């Protein structure tokens, strides 16, 4: 995760940057929980929509690699559930790593 996009956006204000990152982590955790539930339920429409939201949120903070994983799920959801399990697990790991990084950011 490269914080420069957000720091640039906040004029190098690390307090505001942290505040935005924390908001993102909370929102993203809820979306990922929804994604896992949608996978469990085999709801491809919800998977597509939630992955799109996660992608959008991640791009907003400049987490482009994380957004790319979400985009794979968004596209994959249109092809079928069987392609998605690995991607959702990868997103879960990446999301947890991102949250850990945010907790260390000061």
């Amino acid at each position, binding site marked *: 995760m490269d914080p420069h*996009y957000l720091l640039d*956006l906040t004029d190098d204000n690390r307090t505001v940057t942290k505040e*935005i990152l924390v*908001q*993102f982590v909370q*929102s*993203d955790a809820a979306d990922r929980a929804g994604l896992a539930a949608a996978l469990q339920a085999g709801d491809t429409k919800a998977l597509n*929509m939630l992955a*799109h*939201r996660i*992608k*959008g*949120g991640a*791009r*907003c*903070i*400049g987490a*482009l690699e994380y957004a790319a994983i979400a985009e794979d799920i968004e596209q994959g959801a249109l092809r079928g559930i069987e392609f998605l399990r690995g991607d959702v697990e990868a997103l879960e790991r990446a999301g947890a790593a991102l949250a850990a990084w945010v907790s260390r950011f000061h």
Partner: protein
Amino acid sequence: MHILVVDDHDFTRSMTVRLLHDIGQTDIAECRDGAEALASARAQRPDIVLTDLNMPGMDGMTFIRQLAKQKLTDSLIILSGLELSVLRAVESLAVVSGLRVLGAVAKPFRKDALASMLHAHSHPLSASGSAGDIDLAGLERGIAMEEFKAWYVPILDVKSLRTVALEAVPRWESREYGTLMGLNALAPVNRLAAAPEAAKQVVRDAMLGAALWRQMGWRGTVIVPLGLGALRDESLLDWIHAQARINGISGHVFAIALEGAAFTEDAGTAAFALARALMNEFAVIVHLRTPEDLAAMNLLTASSTITCPASWVSDPVLLHRVHECASRTRAVVGVTNVDEARLFDAMHEARIHLVQGTAVGEPAGAAETYETHLRVSG
């Protein structure tokens, strides 16, 4: 300025609002979906609506149609990471519906991109070439990255309502700023030394399109407008001629559009460009925008088409002068910015042969959407 932000995702919506605050906007309303946003717009009449396209319930396109139908705002900014082809189709829909699309921004958003679009809303008629909030270094990077593309405005035959030409208007599909359009965003290009290169990118794009549609059986003309900044490169028209040959395109299929104001601002360059274009067998269209442009038309000795604003049709003096100029130069007369089929009878009586719409988008889509729109509105 009252701004309405519509996005179903709380975090991305709050980020958009934060950016708007950062660039000095304080009168902002937020909504989570299209239905809520329509109610808010009815109550508060926002100057600008920023909307996502991908929303549950009422999707972004339906929301935009309703906004236009109920005349709830003038200007729109699309917040989306969708494919450019989709964005173009949405822009086409919005413009045909009477909304002004200030631009489309992809995430991650940039403050300067949003600021430029808001500036375009506040200064819609500025064609001075002022750089405004556009970062000239950014423009140069955009040119280096070949981000200038052709979008299309249909031109219709008054009698048949068929699309006989498509004018390729330049759009800057910027990775940094989003898709920028309109004079405020693009006029600064003409001040850059790299302006001919930006023009070449649009020409290349349009020629590929012209060759393709020719193969598909469309027999219309593709028109590329060239500004003074580009025309100051005296080799540009020869380069276009060479490209046309490479693509197997004759001058009857490809045309050059010049602004009438160019003849006032730099008559030498404009006259040279006109002569060079005609020598290379390109049709030439001259767009007249103001009565001052008409004064400069004494310099015009030949042209294929002259266009004037539709409002001139009701001014007998101006219309007479346009016809006089057309008769001298053997040009066909057209008018710009016509959106209602019922006006076509008046155009016909005024000896107007072509009308130019305001729809913008993918070539086939723009023409089809516009023709359908005219049939409905007529």
